[in-house]
């Protein structure tokens, strides 16, 4: 994101809205974006309504109010002068927007946001069948952001644990080799709001995957949100629950349920 210094009146509204907290006031009293840390999510641009005032007008109003010792407080969800300017993005920087702006569609999957499928259409795709378990390992979430260099550390560690990376997942599509989990060199320094490594393995391998995550989590400078999924038994019970508990981990009371209403139903032989 860029800020048009001719227009900015330094009200600071964008500072709080920025998902990464990377907008600050420059010495000239105008705001500026730390380009290294901005993930191009466009939240600032989308959320702050452009009031369309001329900068000279806002400054004059402020000056007059200042004479009477009154402050000028803009509504918190506006940019008074429309100074936020999304720039055209070139590769590899454009990958930041693809992963961070949920209104962007991933070309490979046709899915918005981070482009994962998990169990959301399991009844029609049969992605997770009896005995399979899926993991979603999301780096950068909640609210910290992640560089692909860290994402690669985790994907390479997981690749050692007899897992199958989901071929349609956008992170998998950035891998140069799905056997090693290595990610293409030119994106490694790019930062995104979050990215999800999506994989499946067999139920009996749950403990091994969790052990790998246990170790590699200390090697990254960001947070990781982990999810686990499987197809239910005929009576609606969840097979992975007892296995996760046996491995010594706690499951959340809330989660996601696929109701199984999609058609045509995938037929497992």
């Amino acid at each position, binding site marked *: 994101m860029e800020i048009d210094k001719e227009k900015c009146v330094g009200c600071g509204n964008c500072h709080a809205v920025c998902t990464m*907290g990377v907008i600050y006031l420059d010495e000239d009293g105008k705001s500026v974006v730390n380009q290294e840390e901005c993930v191009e999510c466009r939240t600032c641009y989308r959320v702050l309504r452009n009031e369309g005032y001329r900068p000279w007008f806002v400054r004059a109003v402020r000056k007059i109010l200042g004479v009477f010792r009154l402050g000028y407080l803009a509504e918190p969800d506006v940019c008074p002068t429309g100074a936020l300017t999304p720039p055209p993005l070139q590769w590899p920087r454009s990958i930041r927007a693809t992963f961070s702006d949920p209104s962007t569609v991933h070309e490979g999957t046709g899915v918005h946001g*981070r482009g994962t499928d998990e169990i959301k259409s399991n009844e029609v795709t049969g992605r997770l069948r009896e005995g399979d378990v899926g993991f979603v390992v999301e*780096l950068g979430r*909640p609210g910290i952001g992640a560089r692909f260099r860290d994402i690669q550390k985790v994907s390479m560690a997981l690749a050692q644990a007899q897992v199958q990376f989901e071929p349609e997942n956008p992170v998998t599509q950035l891998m140069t080799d799905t056997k090693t989990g290595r990610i293409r060199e030119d994106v490694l320094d790019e930062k995104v709001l979050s990215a999800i490594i999506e994989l499946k393995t067999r139920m009996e391998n749950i403990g091994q995957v969790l052990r790998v995550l246990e170790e590699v989590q200390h090697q990254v400078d960001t947070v990781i949100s982990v999810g686990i999924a499987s197809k239910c038994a005929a009576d609606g019970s969840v097979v992975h629950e007892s296995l996760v508990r046996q491995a010594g981990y706690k499951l959340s009371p809330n989660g996601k349920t696929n109701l199984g209403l999609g058609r045509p139903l995938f037929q497992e032989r």
Partner: protein
Amino acid sequence: MTNTLHRQGDVESLKGDFVVFAHTAKSRNREGSGPKIREFMRICLRHNPVNIGDAKQGNVHQDDIDINKLISQQGDGAAAAAVFADMESLQKVIEDLIRADLGICINVSGLLEEVRACCVKAGIQRHSVEHSLGFWGAKDRLPERHILEIHTMCGHGMVSFNLIRKMIEQVKLRRLSAKKASKILAKCCECGAFNPKRAEQLLERFSKGIT
């Protein structure tokens, strides 16, 4: 919608937070799904969702969003979501969706046992389930638990920690009502998974120092 998986909070608070969303798969049920997704939205609307929208066009709490226009423009594969603040509404929505037999995939995020009970009452068994295993890695970089309770209602991370802090402060100073502040937070979440009603209740509590 991995974004609805890691919602934080105690069970009592989560009892008022269910996200119902439609999904389709390429070459399975995405092609020709536009009218079905629009019908999904109409069914959800009938049961007073506290939020509704899609990832491409935004949600009902954003500026200049007309929900009927949004629905009419939804095409094949639109990522549609609606949030309900009580189990009675959720039960009715599930029953209506089963009756409508749209053939698109329907998922619900929320307390798993409560959702299971709704399914059983409606005469179906759930197909697949996903749990959160929580947060790992550099957890020392995370803010206080109560900030995360609001933040995780938009799993895409569009509701910044700093904006939540600012809204708590504004409510505390009575510059904004909790309702207005929660609406500003809901504006940030693009796909409509954020629950402004729950956010309002949490802002009321947090602004009084109860975390």
